[in-house]
């Protein structure tokens, strides 16, 4: 082992990390933050706009006020629920002040949360928005053919949303399992 140690210590120092790489890293992180922020703003705006339209609808259709108000609440539900879950278990950057095993445990918790969220997308995202589309459809599309097209379109869209979320959940699950193995391995006392 001493021989290995000698060879190891004799390693010449590699060339320093280039400025270009550092710039790339910092720029990428800024872009990522910007993308996440703009996505959240967009999704909240759509939800609020939908809720506002429902509120307006409740005034213009007094006999269906309950339906419109219910749809307003339903359209706000997915983003509110998502924000609550994200606030409860936020994604944390690597915590250098925690030992590796504790950082992995935190990371594992976050991954479990993400997998659960993606798997349950049917009830917290698709169901409320599907109900909004189903209940409000007849008010906006009077012709049966157009209404049918709207419903088929919505079905297709929600099927697509469900599919991409399940695909993402599968990928994350694979990563979660690998991390679980690492945590179990590290937690085992010998």
């Amino acid at each position, binding site marked *: 082992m001493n021989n290995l140690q000698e060879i190891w210590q004799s390693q010449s120092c*590699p060339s320093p990390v280039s400025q270009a790489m550092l710039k790339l890293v910092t720029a990428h992180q800024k872009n990522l933050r910007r993308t996440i922020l703009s996505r959240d703003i967009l999704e909240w705006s759509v939800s609020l706009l939908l809720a506002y339209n429902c509120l307006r609808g409740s005034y213009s259709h007094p006999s269906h006020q309950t339906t419109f108000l219910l749809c307003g609440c339903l359209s706000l539900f997915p983003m509110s629920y998502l924000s609550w879950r994200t606030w409860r278990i936020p994604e944390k950057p690597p915590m250098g002040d925690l030992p590796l095993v504790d950082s992995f445990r935190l990371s594992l918790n976050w991954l479990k949360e993400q997998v659960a969220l993606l798997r349950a997308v049917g009830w917290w995202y698709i169901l409320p928005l599907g109900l909004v589309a189903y209940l409000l459809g007849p008010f906006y599309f009077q012709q049966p053919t157009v209404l049918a097209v709207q419903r088929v379109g919505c079905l297709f869209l929600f099927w697509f949303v469900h599919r991409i979320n399940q695909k993402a959940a599968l*990928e994350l699950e694979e990563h979660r399992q690998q991390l679980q193995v690492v945590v179990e391995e590290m937690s085992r006392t010998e």
Partner: protein
Amino acid sequence: MTQSHKLLEEWSNRYNGLLQKVARAFSTSDRADLLQEMLLQLWRSIPQFKGHCKESTWVYRVAFYTALQWNRKNRCHRTEPLDEGQLAATDSPEDPRLEQIYRAIRQLKTIDRTLVLLSLEQHSYQEISEITGLTVSNVGVRLKRAKDSLLERVKGESRE
């Protein structure tokens, strides 16, 4: 230039050797990408750095945290691929036995790789325990086994 950027630059210069060794021990074809990912995670971690632990311990933890989770397929912070040539450049030619050691390290279990690397970097059991969160006695037992396994593999590599 922001404070964070300055610190990242400082760390990347000071711990360049360490980061490159970890990247090489945990990856072959996408070493540059792993190095980039480690820098990215270091950059992300900087706002949390309050000096409660040693700077080197922080960098070690973040580097190993990233390397142990490294999975090309599942990367969520995919960045632009880099030229591997950027990393290999050194002033003097490399001892061929060094590549054998790296190959042998890469064959170890991920935890063992971490322990062996820290040991080769001449860290004490106590320091390794602080970085990883394993107990000192656990580090001792595991490291002994990991070193035996490494030596066997290096011998196997030499025979080939």
